[in-house]
């Protein structure tokens, strides 16, 4: 199927924007890289603003106007109160909205946060040791358990440990560095994936527009 002018323009813009961003690697402060960054930021701002505006209109205001969900008036009022920050001397009114939003947000967040990031990992570190069946799993679970205790010691003890006990902190630090190393490696793989995605867009232009290949 032949490319339409719209497709060609789209592929060209994709390729051009990728080239502009990549120019940053050659020279950090250049007009192409800065231009691409400004375009993306401005389009994103408009996109997010209009989408959220549309969402509020369709999901919140219309149900109020047709009377199906009058309770939506409360979040709308709370939202409007945020804008009192724009008037000198009236900004304190917005603190009610902040309090409401932060209070509810933190309350519901902590219910899951404590379970996810505190109780479950601790529970898992203990049950892995007792539940492991093969010798390899047992050794692995034991190492993770000891590592968890040492890493916790590293963060929690504010008293400097001396003598043989200092090795607890050394082991804890090594364990933390290993974990952070894995996270960093995952980030590198992620960045590589994005780089390949951009490279693919670059190639698409050459293949489909310049060489006339079919998608």
């Amino acid at each position, binding site marked *: 199927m032949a490319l339409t002018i719209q497709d060609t323009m789209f592929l060209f813009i994709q390729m051009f924007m990728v080239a502009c961003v990549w120019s940053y690697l*050659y020279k950090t402060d250049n007009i192409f890289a800065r231009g691409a960054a400004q375009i993306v930021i401005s389009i994103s701002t408009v996109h997010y603003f209009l989408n959220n505006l549309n969402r509020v209109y369709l999901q919140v205001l219309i149900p109020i106007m047709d009377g*199906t969900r009058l309770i939506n008036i409360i979040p709308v009022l709370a939202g409007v109160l945020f804008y009192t920050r724009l008037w000198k001397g009236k900004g304190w009114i917005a603190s009610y909205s902040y309090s409401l939003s932060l209070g509810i947000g933190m309350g519901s967040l902590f219910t899951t946060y404590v379970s*996810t990031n505190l109780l479950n990992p601790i529970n898992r570190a203990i049950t892995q040791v007792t539940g492991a069946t093969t010798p390899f799993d047992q050794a692995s679970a034991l190492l993770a358990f000891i590592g968890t205790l040492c890493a916790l010691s590293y963060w929690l003890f504010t008293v400097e440990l001396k003598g043989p006990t200092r090795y607890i902190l050394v082991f804890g630090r090594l364990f933390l560095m290993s974990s952070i190393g894995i996270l960093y490696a995952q980030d590198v*793989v992620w960045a*590589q*994936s*994005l780089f390949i*995605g951009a490279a693919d867009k670059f190639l698409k232009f050459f293949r489909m527009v310049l060489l006339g290949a079919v998608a």
Partner: protein
Amino acid sequence: MALAKLGKIDYRFIYAFMTIITFIPLIYPIGIPTTVGDNVKNYVNKIETYPAGSVALTSFSGYITMLPDVEPIYVATYKLLFARGFKVLILLTDVDAPIVITQVLNKAGVDWSKEGIDFVIFPYMSMDEAAHVVFTDNIRSYFINDWKLRSLDNATNLPLMQEIYDYTDFDLVVGSTGHVSRYNVWCGIDIVAWGTGTGLLPFVGPFYDPINGPIYGYVGGASQGGELEIATGYLGDGIKTNDAKNLGIITLCIIIIIGNLSMLGEKEGGKE
């Protein structure tokens, strides 16, 4: 001293070298072997245990900036879900998601005439903790329409929604790797997790157990997206770009080792 000199190479040569290394396999695929990991096999196996007609809730974050990392996972998963006869609910949890979902479902070969019968897409709503509670407890207290503003109670347009009211009607949740804990806390239903391969995956760990759940399998990042394509048989962009990913990572590892050796050389040189 020779090692120390390596560290003085202009960084632009390294970037250019990495670019060439990435482009070569995209133009001429090499076919580096890919092994499917247990977590990916468990992800597929879990989905395949459900009979046709089961209901799967898919939490679709779909950031445009993350797309190269997650698109192969989304596409292969939707292909698998529809091929297995699942009824699919799609929750759009990011502002980009309404745009991205169309592209992903088109790539998955979805029949749009079956919208409302085989699948339903909810409008985008920011899905924080409180929103998850309300949504899972009673879908209609959160959404009154689908993403095309058709009432969820309209049996003509959305017959699928006439059987679904809350989380007890879901058989499986395909949750974002960063959000899975929320489903576990509020629902306690079977979960498989999908998402990026970055720091989000550690959230999955405490919940991952292929036998007892609640998370039975997970797929994170484009590399595992390629593995998922092999495991499901739906080959696509993931496997196509795996060569470039693998070759790029191997090269990067070599560059990091050389960089460290050069730093070591510099230190030794300083001592002399």
